[in-house]
């Protein structure tokens, strides 16, 4: 059970959070201008590194705010 630092509520058990996958994947400005391949890349392609990974979490059982952190996917250490 990881202890995840909510920027607003402080550290809480992992079970209070919802995982949001890779951070920084922005909704395209004009989806209509994208090719199918470009749109598919937005929809379906995400990094899956062994090591530090910037990812999104939402404190669903608490303040319901979304935030990003960097977690080492090998050790589960939250490094930033």
């Amino acid at each position: 059970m990881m202890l995840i630092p909510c920027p607003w509520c402080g550290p809480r058990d992992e079970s209070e959070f919802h995982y949001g996958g890779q951070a920084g994947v922005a909704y395209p400005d004009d989806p209509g201008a994208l090719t199918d391949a470009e749109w598919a890349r937005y929809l379906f392609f995400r990094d899956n590194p062994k090591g530090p990974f910037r990812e999104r979490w939402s404190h669903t059982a608490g303040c319901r705010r979304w935030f990003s952190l960097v977690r080492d996917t090998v050790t589960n250490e939250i490094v930033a």
Partner: protein
Amino acid sequence: MSGAFRTARGGLVDRDRPLRFRFDGVEYEGLQGDTLASALLANGVHHVASSIRLGRPRGVFAAGVEEPNALVQIEEPFPEPMLPATTVELYDGLVARGLRGRGRLADRPDPARYDATHAHCDVLVVGAGPAGLAAAAVAASSGARVIVVDDQPRPGGSLLGAAEHLDWVASVAGGLRAAPEVRLLTRTTAFGYYDDNHVVAVERRTNHLGAQAPAHRSRERVWRIRARHVVLATGAHERSLAFADNDRPGVMLAGAAQTYLRRYGVRPGRRAVVLTTNDSAYAVARDLHAAGVEIAAVADLRDSPGAGRAPHGAELLPGWAVAGVTGADRISAVTLRRLAGGAFTGPELRLDADLLLVSGGWNPVGALYGQAGGRLAYDDGLGAFRPDGGCRQALEVAGSVAGTYTLKGCLAEGAAAGARAAEATGFRPGEPDLPETADPEVTPGVAVWTLPGDPATSLVDLQRDVTVADIARATGTGMRSAEHVKRYTTAGTAHDQGRTSGTLTSGIVAEMLGVNVGDLGTTTFRPPYAPVSFAALAGRDRGMRFDPVRVTALHAWHVAAGALFENVGQWKRPWYYPRDGEDMAAAVLRECRAAREGVAMMDASTLGKIDVRGADAAVFLDRLYTNMISTLKPGAIRYGVMCRPDGMVLDDGTVIRLAEDRFLVTTTTGNAAVILDWMEEWLQTEWPQLRVYCTSVTEQWATVALVGPESREVLASLAPGLDVSRDGFGFMTWRDTTVAGLDARVCRISFSGELAYEINVSWWDALALWEALAERGITPYGTQTMHVLRAEKGYPIIGQDTDGTVTPHDLGLGWAVSRTKADFIGKRSFTRTDTARTDRKQLVGLLPDGGELLPEGAHLVAAAEPPLTALGHVTSSYHSAALGRTFALALIEGGRDLVGRTVWATLDDGLAPVTITGAVLYDPEGARRDG
């Protein structure tokens, strides 16, 4: 007398409290403070079980949780399988028997309570031996919040087995118990070490009371401890070494024999031979000798025992080893021989003995350290693996788990670790108060894994019956990793998790492969460290508490009315309301007829409701819904569909415009929280510039659907101030009014095709509204009728008729997809090649030719003869009162082009022909909507 082998005095047992117990059908007497193992040994019973695979007789081998042999089944007071006799505290009336490997689960429900709790501390100390107590005392002196867990009934650890410095133990424990911010948990085993210092332990609270356990107190409790800093003082376990017949009853770890003598006042035999690789067994030999156990010889695998002093009268044989063991159910003699260059040499020495005490060295108990993410490194000096000190978690290791085997060293290390832990959490520790201890001269041990002899009877893992021969077979097949050998031989996989055999296995594999054991390493340590009952893991999360049950304000009424309930997400919703003698089909047909021909009502309070407010609320909803929301006028309602970016339907519901800047949207019952989170996600992460706030009001409003051609008259009578006329209160509009004297918001919405209203009142007022309607004799209906009514109209249920691969177009909801909006979530995906295919699965109606009720989920195939080309599946299937027949909805490839065609439904007993129709089977022109 509590057994012929009980000493006249001494030990931590209460000689004034005899306990009666039965083992394998024989009555015995033990003492308060005994374990089942010590009580059996006191009565001269060594052979307590047999091995799982080979059926070899097995005795008590150890004195604690590491016991691999003495598995017992508890029969009374309540059946419990596979407990090591060394961990069962004796109580009056205990009935047990020895096992051959497998136990038997109780065949009746366990009446005991089990629970779990959360705990938090600055410093958690695992282990209340000398190092742990020293650490706890120092940490507690700092004012830090401290938790100490230990698996024994009383603190002391190895000091209990040695029965020394018990005054110091009592003084420290008394101080810990008296400190307000310290919790000392005995009978508590830390079995899991997870991320961020989350340590899970199980406390055996009333097991030791047997039938006297109070019913209100939980029998076992799982502690979920979050510690800022942890001190692991988990000690060390003695290990054996592999030699022929090393598993015979009477062969025992040397340290265990000392524990039986000093802690329990039990002589484990009359005449013993000692086999050792290190100094520790000498003290055992002297102790036993002093207590009247004859020590025949001490065979020391070291050529020069150095400080080793054999007791008076015992022969000290440096460089000698065990060449054979005589006796099956109990040893009667031990044959010793000189070992040179890995082979026996010279004459045999055969000694009568009923006890063979073995010490192959000590293994630091590094399991929790390993679970914490730490690595165990081989220490040549110790001849064992110990924590490498590089674990990323905030922890200390202290005492013998760190490879420190002198008492003086353990105490000092514990105190230092406690101080570091306190300081790391911002507290100032005091000076430790440690007992005076000697600093004995130590001669290094030697790591020996096997002795010459029959590999097929040289046991490595006693509980799994893995022999040296088995390991040779594994390495012979080419295995080179400890993990592979473990899985191939099952060594280390029994419920003792290889505590006495893991390092031995690695050592033997390394020896066979000719590699350094340190390079080979250990297998991975995983929770649980010791077996935990499922009852404890389940705790109170069972039955109705397994998952929260959500109910509406009308639940008690539904129950009183005899409703049967359906689970929808966490909600209990009335399924149907059978009257006397009705089965489900009859009840649902009656409820449907009432809704289509008269008037009926349903509790729709479970619908998710979200208040969406702000200047940009309309813009925001335009982006979320596939259809246009911004053109909706205040006072009006629109049905809307939401998709994910991939174009698949996420949810549907109604959007009520309360004001220019305020909407109330409804979600499906199971999706209320999902959609609120969805809205927040987009607002917070993509469109923070939008001025919109969302607030859940699901339980602020109770909702009653009033349905049927007579619903207008009913509403008119209850809401005299409301113009209910067809033109005065149009379809898809809402009014704030008073209904049955209650503040209400009435929406003209229909999920059945009939004239219908949804009346929303405060959750507090729901019962008053419902009872006012019930007084008028209105038929209540449940979710089954709701499903039939909506399916007759071809209205899909998101999550039943969809599965995350279905677009609005697939559902025939293309009309709800805007062509004019520049963008909305999902729009771009509708032109993806795959999404634009015309042969996608589409929602259609089905009429079974033979009148069968098709099972939901049934596959549909194109022809009755092979090859059976799969076309899709049934998503909803019902009896229809209005149609006078069965019907179904289905997702079928290119289904809308197949209307009128026959396909085949796969049933358990063959294929049934069904005719594809449009999805709307009832009132396709929509004539009934306005009454």
